[in-house]
């Protein structure tokens, strides 16, 4: 039974505990310290954590809504006392939520069951559950209350729904991994970001965009390019609509990821845009020894004096002085992104908060900032005049830190790397992948470019690395990672063990290409026959090593053996590669070990001239399409 299923089984218990705890809620100061092994519950039990991901205030500030991803509920707290009012169960793995403009309805995107929960905020009950696109990640209603816009991460689009009936009107092409939305203050434009880079030629800088949607016409009006950005998260606007900001990752993947101490692997940045800026400008949040790893949530103070950015890996909130930022931008030629001294010109302070801070929201007067600490089950309350955490709301739930939670905290935290620059989750966004290719030091500078791999379902698919040279996860994630990625040696044995347990626990997301009844479509059936065939179209036997089903055997699509499939490039040290799992293969473009195949089709139309990567050159185009249709079901 997966840990998520176990979690669901315990939902009733959680709800009971939560109600009980509501009477004894606590508000405690958080000390900002690391989790130590002695606080860790050594049992491997799956504990029912809340994992608050996003936080919202009702328009009158009377209620604080907390979206809890692991307990799969919205927790409603009193906006003043923070007392628990009610827990509302929603769908699987909720990822985003927003209020209707009048605050009467709360919309929740349930990313694993592809639904939208509609909560009546008077009754505090789910009044409708609507089907939406693949992996809905955030939702916004237009000012007129006519349309809902839903960002779907897997289908890479923004769906447009009737706000009253939930009937889908259309889907608009957005960036790859479409995830976060914000409406401009005048309601005329919707801005959408995406967490994976758009397709671009091999070994070129990643390209991302802010998709600008005309809210009235529900069509894409513009796309603001974000060059060299891979991973764009929340977007926010100033009240006057003249300043927009997005939180993002700026990977440096075209140079060897060699020495964090020599410039790092990522810049953690924001891009500001709008009339105040005049153009799109990317500015770093980092400074030497103070990195803002994994920027995620953004908010702009009502008086436009400050920008607040959460950094999930650095466990802090960066406070930017807007006036100083604009002056810096207007008086310096830029670009600034590589300049670790730049942020000193506009970063006011960095406020330590809890583990993996994500969503944040301001009170209407801007005096209080609430930050959801996902891996600590707390909400930090920050006084924006003093920039101090004045209280920490502890959500009801387990207080012990389980093996899994400790492993997950380790996965997301940047504290183990040199100067706290990166964590596992920097490249494995939300424990998945990042869609880009890296040149890692162990293989030699300029040698063996590798595509970042999906982690979900990775359990029991050893050996690891593309070349299969790491026998297990502790080897993959332990000394090797410490030496070549973190440039430090900070994992103790327990921490490494917990990290490995967490990574092994990651289940595959539901496959969106399989029919609900488990059957295959005719095209998928035909493709399955091709996948499993032992004889080619000319009646010639296909050698075992040249059959799809031999190398990609088993439930996860890997025989866990090493093969040479003719994909070695001049810069590769070896052509021997482990057959990679096929888990959710449709999501993980580009393909091949170095990411040179932009699509599944290119694996065979471009990179298999000699039939070494399976016997495929006897197939017609129709048959290759069928094979791909089947692969998408894996």
């Amino acid at each position: 039974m997966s840990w998520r299923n176990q979690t669901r089984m315990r939902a009733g218990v959680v709800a009971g505990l939560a109600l009980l705890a509501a009477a004894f809620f606590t508000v405690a100061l958080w000390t900002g310290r690391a989790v130590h092994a002695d606080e860790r519950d050594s049992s491997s039990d799956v504990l029912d954590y809340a994992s608050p991901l996003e936080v919202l205030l009702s328009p009158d500030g009377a209620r604080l809504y907390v979206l809890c991803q692991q307990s799969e509920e919205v927790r409603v707290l009193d906006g003043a006392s923070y007392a628990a009012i009610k827990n509302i169960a929603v769908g699987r793995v909720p990822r985003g939520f927003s209020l209707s403009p009048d605050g009467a309805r709360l919309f929740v995107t349930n990313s694993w069951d592809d639904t939208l929960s509609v909560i009546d905020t008077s009754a505090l009950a789910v009044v409708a559950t609507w089907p939406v696109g693949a992996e809905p990640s955030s939702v916004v209603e237009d000012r007129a209350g006519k349309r809902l816009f839903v960002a779907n991460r897997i289908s890479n689009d923004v769906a447009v729904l009737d706000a009253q009936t939930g009937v889908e009107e259309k889907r608009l092409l957005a960036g790859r991994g479409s995830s976060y939305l914000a409406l401009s203050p005048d309601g005329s434009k919707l801005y959408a970001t995406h967490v994976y880079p758009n397709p671009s030629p091999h070994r070129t800088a990643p390209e991302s965009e802010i998709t600008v949607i005309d809210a009235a016409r529900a069509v894409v009006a513009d796309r603001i390019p974000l060059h060299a950005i891979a991973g764009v998260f929340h977007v926010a606007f100033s009240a006057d609509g003249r300043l927009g900001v997005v939180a993002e990752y700026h990977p440096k993947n075209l140079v060897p990821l060699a020495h964090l101490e020599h410039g790092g692997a990522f810049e953690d940045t924001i891009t500001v845009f709008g009339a105040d800026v005049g153009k799109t400008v990317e500015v770093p949040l980092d400074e030497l020894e103070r990195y803002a790893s994994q920027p995620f949530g953004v908010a702009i103070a009502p008086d436009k004096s400050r920008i607040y950015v959460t950094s999930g890996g650095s466990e802090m909130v960066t406070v930017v002085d807007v006036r100083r930022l604009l002056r810096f931008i207007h008086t310096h030629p830029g670009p600034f992104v590589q300049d670790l001294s730049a942020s000193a010109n506009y970063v006011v302070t960095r406020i330590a908060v809890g583990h993996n801070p994500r969503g944040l929201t301001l009170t209407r007067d801007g005096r209080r900032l609430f930050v959801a600490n996902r891996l600590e089950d707390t909400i930090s309350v920050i006084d924006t005049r003093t920039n101090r955490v004045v209280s920490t709301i502890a959500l009801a739930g387990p207080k012990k830190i389980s093996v899994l939670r400790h492993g997950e905290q380790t996965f997301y935290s940047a504290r183990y790397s040199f100067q706290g620059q990166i964590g596992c989750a920097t490249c494995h966004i939300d424990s998945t992948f990042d869609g880009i290719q890296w040149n890692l030091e162990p293989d030699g500078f300029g040698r063996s470019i590798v595509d970042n791999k999906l982690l979900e379902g990775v359990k029991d698919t050893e050996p690891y690395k593309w070349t299969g040279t790491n026998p297990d996860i502790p080897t993959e994630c332990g000394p090797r990672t410490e030496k070549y990625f973190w440039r430090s040696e900070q994992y103790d044995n327990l921490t490494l063990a917990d990290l490995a347990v967490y990574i092994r626990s990651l289940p595959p997301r539901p496959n969106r290409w399989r029919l609900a009844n488990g059957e295959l479509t005719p095209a998928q059936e035909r493709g399955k026959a091709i996948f499993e065939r032992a004889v080619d179209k000319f009646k010639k036997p296909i050698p075992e090593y040249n059959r799809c089903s031999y190398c990609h055997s088993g439930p996860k699509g890997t025989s866990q053996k090493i093969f040479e499939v003719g994909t070695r490039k001049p810069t590769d040290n070896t052509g021997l590669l482990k057959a990679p799992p096929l888990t959710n293969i449709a999501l993980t473009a580009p393909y091949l070990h170095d990411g040179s195949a932009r699509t599944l089709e290119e694996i065979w139309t471009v990179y298999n001239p000699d039939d070494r990567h399976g016997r495929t050159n006897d197939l017609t185009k129709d048959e290759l399409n069928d094979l791909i249709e089947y692969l998408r079901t894996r």
Partner: protein
Amino acid sequence: MKKFALKTLWMSAMLLAAAPLAFAAPPEMPRYRFENFTTANGLPDNHVFAVLVDGDRIWAGTENGLAVYENHEWKTYTTKDGLAHRAVLSLALDKNTGDVWAGTMAGLSRISGGRIDTYTQLNSGLSNDVVYGVSVEGENVWAATAAGGCRFDLRTGQWSLYNERNTPMVEIWTYAVSATPTKVYYGVWGSGVLEYDQKTGRWDKYDDPDGENEMVLFKDQGLIHEIVTSVSYVDNILWAATYFGDSRYDGRYWHNFLTKDSGLPSNFTNFVKGVDAKRAWFCTDKGLAYYDGVSWAVYRPSLKDGKPEMTVRDAEGNVTPVAVTTAPAHNYVLGIDFQGDDIWLATAKGLSHGIRQQQ
């Protein structure tokens, strides 16, 4: 004096009364003032293969890029912007999303909010890189390629190919596609018209009735010729263009058009676009023709001297010239689209905007 004046008045009245008998006025057909665009005023190339009206924007598929005219300015997308190929052969608008699909000589491109995504036979399930026709219906994009037809399901990402293995297609050189929620029609070079019923998922074929010749032997016996260049399905009527005349099909009866028995200026027809069940526009190598169900009008630069020319042919076959001062950029017309009462034309020597004139 007074007597003379009365006599003159009486004779004038008689002449006016008799005039319609002697000189029957031609039928009222739409008149246009043509404004033409060439490389001289912003078009990237004078060879325009396709034109598409998208509200106030006009898209022109040229031999040297995809041009869009908006706010009196041209902007051109090229391969540097991600366009599949410089030569854009066909265009279609997704009215739901506003995305434009461009069939080119080397793939199919989607233009969405200024971003271009390109699908080729190597990087996707597209059947062939030469995309002669494209049409959007709901969440399906249908393409006519040099190696059969295909459907791209925007919801699932699935490509379905249609060729000699799963349709009655004899030749796989599909030249045009017209997709609607009920029927999808393919114009196939040498294989007539293919019909796909969206409800049943079945294919049917219309080609040479006797199976021995490429053309009908008797008028209105069937599709006029197997070399079909264009199809247009509107109001349950199929309009089909070939290089040897044109056809109209209502699901039961065919009606064929040739120069010898209609107002077509040429049997060599590049493109047809139905307005409704009765009316259609025919783009030929010898000018643009409009058929209103009874009469015909032809618009072109004169084939003799290049001067603007418009003629009207009535039901009896009487052809009357109409005095005009402008004409399409060229008599070799490859495409047409409508912008309200106005028309836009793709021609071999420029793009033309026909501005409807009050009559």
